[in-house]
């Protein structure tokens, strides 16, 4: 995908170079059409393609963990303790391992990807321009819908007596999946120095 886009970009650059060096070639009809393709249609497609690739790339675990502030959270995915919810999901492939952060933190609403991107840009601004927060917090707290996106409708989730008794409270976010004393061991980055880690392949 990236290679195809780079090929398209190179083609656009070659065409734009022709019009930069010899703008007089646009005197003929054929070159006028080529100028429209090279200076309008192809570059516009390059913007769309670039945006698409950058959006897809930002869904990757590797992308999220390339930020310095995210390093402890990436480390927490390898904790050798099934009570750590993100580690358990990541290590057992309950979420795609290459999209682990996105699977549990994406906003699955219609404008979710746009909202996520804006939130990401705010964090980049805080990191490089203003002051980054000491503790990273999710604005508004963790939304149960991010768990329910996968778990709702699943047999073992629905048939669990505790889940079914609290289903309305869970769906309306009145009771949080992670802070109600049920699944409250999440990343726990402050305690990572005292836990055992899993090494893949060992």
């Amino acid at each position, binding site marked *: 995908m990236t290679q195809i*886009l780079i090929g398209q970009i190179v083609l656009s650059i070659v065409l734009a170079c022709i019009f930069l060096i010899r703008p007089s070639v646009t005197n003929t009809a054929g070159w006028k059409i080529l100028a429209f393709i090279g200076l309008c249609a192809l*570059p516009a497609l390059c913007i769309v393609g670039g945006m698409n690739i950058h959006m897809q790339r930002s869904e990757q675990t590797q992308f999220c963990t390339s930020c310095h502030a995210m390093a402890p959270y990436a480390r927490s995915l390898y904790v050798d303790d099934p009570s750590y919810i993100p580690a358990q999901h990541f290590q057992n492939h309950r979420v795609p391992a290459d999209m682990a952060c996105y699977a549990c933190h994406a906003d699955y609403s219609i404008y979710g990807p746009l909202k996520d991107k804006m939130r990401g840009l705010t964090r980049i601004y805080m990191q490089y321009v203003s002051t980054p927060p000491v503790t990273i917090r999710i604005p508004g707290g963790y939304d149960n819908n991010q768990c329910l996106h996968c778990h709702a409708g699943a047999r073992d989730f629905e048939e669990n007596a505790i889940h079914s008794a609290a289903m309305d409270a869970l769906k309306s976010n009145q009771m949080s999946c992670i802070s109600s004393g049920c699944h409250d061991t999440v990343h726990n980055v402050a305690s990572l120095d005292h836990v055992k880690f899993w090494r893949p392949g060992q």
Partner: protein
Amino acid sequence: MTFRNLEFKWLLRISSALIIVGLLVEIASLLWFHPLSFVLFAFVGASLIGLGIVVYLASLVFVASTGGEKHG
């Protein structure tokens, strides 16, 4: 060669230059795997390409209006 024709060629050159620089920035952003690469793409690359497209479209309007003046 008329003054208007020269102006059109300069607009085409400016448009081409903006698009080339914008596309080179886009290639750099695609090859750089870092959270800042999106910022580079969106705020520098895409803006330059978009500006180049606008200048090109403006040059077309400019040519059309010049043609209109000739006929009118």
